[in-house]
């Protein structure tokens, strides 16, 4: 099941390879079908998932079964290294509450991304092959339970992303693409070193051999090689490993001060890639922290909660202020992403169930809400060929449906109750405040609630309320019915949202509202895993 959901897009990519590049529509439809099939599988996984099983660590007897679900585990690479022992790499997939929510999110955002890619005209074949490769790699990262396999997916992901930004991006695309690539690569090089060190420090209780299994690594008693680099008594090396991994993942989040690749990447990336980037890719950073960084080095996590919380708060407030100053709408949304990912960091730093459930839920909600925001930015960019906030005004009178969806998305982003973002932010604050370590940070971070509202409402006002500005990116014309309409220069499509755009946005709006009123469908899958994680992290050593 999990293999299928991971490799479906790659299969679609192979099919596309056989389609002549002139058959654009077929290529698109193949991709869409693969994405829809992935969605169906995600629903099946969701329905078949048993929320009672905790995950995180191995179940009774050291086997991942009975703790993880949909497990697939076969030996992949076995090498005899002579004096070093043997290298055992497994093809090991499985989900627990933390990953299953991300699997569903990935399937959802990928499908919406395909719809959003419909308007791509340049080298359609190459685009969709890369897109499908990306979709596979992302999904693979979330279900891989072998560190080596995770690393492989993690690195594969970089390649299509680089080309998708570098070829299909905006004017400054090469700069943005190379920045993104180098930044992420920088993080993952160190990850590789730590991974190798971990391999030689951990044994799998089931086999007694060294292992890359993240499940085995999550249990501290498996660090049982005396004198190994990451053995429990080797505090310094464990701290270094934690920091190195953390920086690697923090770049992806992105956490201040490693965040500057994000606004550039977003501004240059085409709309669907922005959606994928903000909707899924950023979550890999925090997912990596939760799956790898924290449970493998719980004592270092315990010691660094305050620092992580500080960085979370900086992200929240700094991101909000930077967003307030932006003139480009997409850049504003990019900075709002930085701000909102700060809530995830803050929730994680609390180290208690409320905070961590909030953080995970925030990851899911940020995925849906920010996807919506970027799609909406894309809608207006398609029409006006500009994203300068000052070039609009009074749009609500002329594009009422668009304005209504924007209002929902904007209010979801600023954390209005009744919409999903509120519950996750609220839980993050509840958790962060309940922990005595992060309480002062939580008290400062609430400022993000005000400034988040400030930049969103201000942009909403400048673009949608009031009247058309004199230098607006569109003209006012009096239509046949005697009413005023607006006209965009190079746009022959429907003025307000068309069917395809509604098909992308309406599901997200519905999910946002539904999960804002009744969050349990997602939270229910999370709670037992998170409670287990909190136990693992609090384990006295």
């Amino acid at each position, binding site marked *: 099941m999990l293999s299928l959901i991971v490799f479906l897009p790659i299969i679609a990519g192979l099919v596309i390879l056989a389609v002549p590049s002139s058959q654009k529509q077929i290529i698109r439809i193949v991709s869409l079908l693969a994405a829809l099939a992935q969605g169906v599988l995600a629903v099946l996984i969701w329905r078949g998932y048993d929320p009672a099983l905790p995950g995180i660590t191995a179940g009774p007897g050291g086997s991942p079964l009975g703790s993880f679900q949909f497990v697939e585990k076969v030996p992949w690479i076995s090498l005899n290294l002579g004096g070093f022992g043997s290298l055992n790499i497994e093809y090991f997939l499985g989900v627990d509450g933390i990953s299953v929510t991300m699997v569903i999110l990935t399937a959802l955002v990928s499908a919406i991304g395909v719809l959003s890619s419909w308007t791509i005209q340049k080298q359609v074949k190459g685009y969709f092959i890369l897109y499908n490769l990306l979709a596979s790699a992302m999904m693979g990262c979330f279900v891989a339970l072998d560190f080596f396999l995770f690393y492989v997916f993690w690195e594969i992901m970089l390649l299509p992303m680089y080309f998708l930004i570098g070829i299909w991006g905006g004017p400054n695309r090469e700069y943005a693409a190379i*920045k993104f690539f*180098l*930044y992420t690569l920088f993080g993952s090089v160190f990850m590789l070193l730590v991974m190798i060190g971990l391999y030689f420090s951990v044994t799998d209780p089931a086999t007694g051999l060294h292992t890359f299994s993240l499940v085995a690594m999550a249990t501290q008693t498996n660090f049982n090689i005396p004198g190994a680099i990451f053995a429990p008594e080797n505090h310094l090396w464990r701290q270094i490993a934690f920091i190195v991994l953390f920086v690697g993942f923090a770049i992806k989040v992105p956490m*201040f*001060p490693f*965040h*500057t*690749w994000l606004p550039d990447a977003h501004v240059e990336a085409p709309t669907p890639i922005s959606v994928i980037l903000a909707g899924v890719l950023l979550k890999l950073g925090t997912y990596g922290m939760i799956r790898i960084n924290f449970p493998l080095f719980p004592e270092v996590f315990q010691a660094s909660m305050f620092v992580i919380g500080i960085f979370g708060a900086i992200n929240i407030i*700094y991101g909000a*202020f*930077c967003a*307030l*100053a*932006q003139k480009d709408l997409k850049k504003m949304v990019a900075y709002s992403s930085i701000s909102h990912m700060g809530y995830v960091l803050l929730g994680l730093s609390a180290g*208690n*169930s*409320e905070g961590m*459930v909030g953080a995970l839920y925030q990851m899911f909600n940020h995925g849906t809400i920010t996807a919506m925001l970027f799609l909406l930015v894309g809608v207006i960019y398609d029409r006006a060929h500009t994203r300068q906030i000052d070039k609009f005004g*009074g749009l*609500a*009178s002329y594009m009422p449906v668009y304005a209504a969806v924007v209002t929902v998305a904007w*209010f979801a982003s600023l954390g*209005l*109750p*009744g919409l999903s973002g*509120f*519950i996750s932010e*609220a839980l993050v*604050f*509840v958790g962060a*405040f*309940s922990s005595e370590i992060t*309480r002062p940070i*939580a*008290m400062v971070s*609430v*400022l993000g*609630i*005000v*400034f988040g*509202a*400030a930049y969103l*409402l*201000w942009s909403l*006002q400048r673009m*949608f*309320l*009031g*009247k058309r500005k004199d230098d607006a990116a569109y003209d006012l014309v009096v239509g046949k019915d005697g009413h005023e309409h607006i006209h965009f220069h190079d746009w022959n499509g429907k003025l307000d949202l068309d069917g395809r755009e509604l098909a992308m946005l309406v599901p997200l709006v519905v999910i946002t509202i539904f999960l804002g009123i009744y*969050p*349990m469908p997602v*939270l*229910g899958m999370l*709670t*037992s895993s998170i*409670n287990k994680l*909190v*136990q693992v992290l*609090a384990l006295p050593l």
Partner: protein
Amino acid sequence: MHSLIQLSIVVLLLPLLSFVILIFFNRRLPRRGDFIGVGILGTAFGISAYIFWSVIVQTYDPAFRVAWDFTWIDLGNVPGVGPLEIRMGVVIDNLTSIMLAMVTLISLLVHLYSTGYMAGDKNYGRYFAFLGIFTFSMLGIVLSDNFFSIYIFWELVGLSSYLLIGFFFEKDSAADAQKKAFLANRVGDIGMWLGILILYSQFHTFSFEQIYANLAAGKFALSNGWLTAAGILLFMGCVGKSAQFPLHIWLPDAMEGPTPVSALIHAATMVAAGVYFVARIFVMLTPDALHVIAFIGASTAFMAATIAITQNDIKRVLAYSTVSQLGYMVLGLGVGAYSASLFHLVTHAFFKACLFLGSGAIIHAMHHEQDMRWMGALRKKMPWTFATFTLATLALAGLPLTSGFMSKDAILAGAIGFAEVEGGGIYYLIPVLGFFSAMLTAFYMGRQIWLVFFGESRTHLKPADNHHQAHHAHDSHATHGDAHHGAHEVHEVSWNMRAPLVILAALSVFAVYSPDPLDGAKGWFMKMIPTPATVVGEANPQIGALAAGSVAPQHAGVVRTTEVVPPPVVTEHAAPAAAHGEAKGGHVYSDPRQAEIVHAGHAAHYTAIYISSIMVVLGICMAFVVYVFKIIDPEKTANAIRPLYLFSLNKWYWDEIYEATFIKGSMVLARMLSWFDTNIVDGIVNGVATLVRKFAFANDSFDRHVVDGMVNFTAFTVNTTGAVLRKLQTGKVQTYVVMLMLVLFGYFVFYFTRLIY
């Protein structure tokens, strides 16, 4: 589930249904579906009236309370806490049933009124949808049994307020006002949210009942300062929502919304939600927190009243009056006059809604003229409006035989009692400010009545150049506008706008609330809403000493210090009393300070009546002197005290102060951080990249020049040597013989020089 609970949930959801139907389908319905809004609200009011009847009239029990809740979020077995759930629920007690009836009634009347007032607007259907979601959110606040859901609905009323203030969003002033309102409220909300978090972090629950029971049992593990802080932070929510100083600035601007909205949201219900919330948390407020609340309320009441006397816009006068009256309610809660304060909430809701709807009728009839300077002599033309407006004005000013008289005097009596118990001094400032504001209220309302309804019509005096601008700057609809421009014929409004005025005016008469026009305490309202007993003890040891006669001294202040096990006297009385939101018969308070204040408040009842009557009469006389008899010319007076006049006219310059500090400051900070981000943070990244590239180029040149250079040099050397040596390989025997000779010659020279030396 209790049948009343079921009914209340139906009442809660009906307006939401109205919203959903109207937001999606209003254009497909006849009359844009306004009848659906009115009909649904009518049903909701009918059910609420039934709840009111069965709770207040039939049961007539001060301790009445039914509650129901369900699991909303289940966090499972949380390590360190145990099974943890976030529950949502509904509570019905006397206060709730009164508020339910009040909110649905006013909302119904406003719906009805709006069918006349908003007729012809291009977004007519959307308007009713927004009214629906507002009513839903407001009812949610009223019914909530926990902090979390009250916060949710709190923000949702903020949203509805945002949507309705900016209903004429094409006007920049409306768009500014809606943003301002939302942001000012959010500032208050973060305080409220932190207050909630303080309580949650201690008890892992949001429920009012459980939190108060835990507090009463002395389980609050943090210091008493945190408890006071929690109270003040929670009160910040009220400061935002009820437009208290220093966050009052949004409410006057909120008048950009349609006038019926001002009546419903920004006068009668939503802004009173802050007061309602403070009433809900009243039992956990420490004396220190209460002092802060009392002073904030008193200063708000006074400040807003001083601003109201110079405003020219009919709605702005009422807006500042609302701020001032909300200040009274907050003051009342701060001094412990709980019942009086809530009484004033209800009476104010009716008479202020009446005033706003009346002003709406005037604005409607005057074709969107809002400036009182250009009105006058409307008494004859609009007799119904005049009569109801005047009655409501009398209630607002606090003249006997009106509802406002009873409630305001009860608050002021409480303030006197409070000042006496607290030992006088600075605390007397609170009743003094209260009485002084009462005089100002009478004055500005007298001024308003006179300017609008009496004297000569001054429509023609309006400066022409100003006219066009003003027209657009005011509450205008698209289809009205210039069609009526020239013809300023004023008529009484139609029945659907008149009926609400009459009903609301009727509810401003004393008899509705109490048989004795001089004493609200004899009426059903104050009997049904007794002051609940506090669950936190004393913070002021002086008061503890004062009450030494009634309660043993060591019992005073027990709950504050967690080391001391609470003695039975507190847990037995205070806890259940708090849990049920009431005090047992005869209003016996286990807390000595509270008992003192309630007692002193009763004793001060007649003092308050005398003083306030004098102040009100003074105020009215002043209005007569200035505007009726024209003994004092207002313009000359204004010029004589110009700085003071400008200070009031410009609303104490709060907008300018905030603009210069917080707003400018935030923008400057935002630009600085953004600059920092692009130039420093990203600069470092790009700098590192440049350095790496420089290094790479240097490396490259080292590679090419040094490493490769050495390789090439070797080759060069070999090459050169070869080239030189090649010259020797001529292949001619003669050359070789010459070279041999040269070598031999050299050898001999060397050999013989060795021999000689």
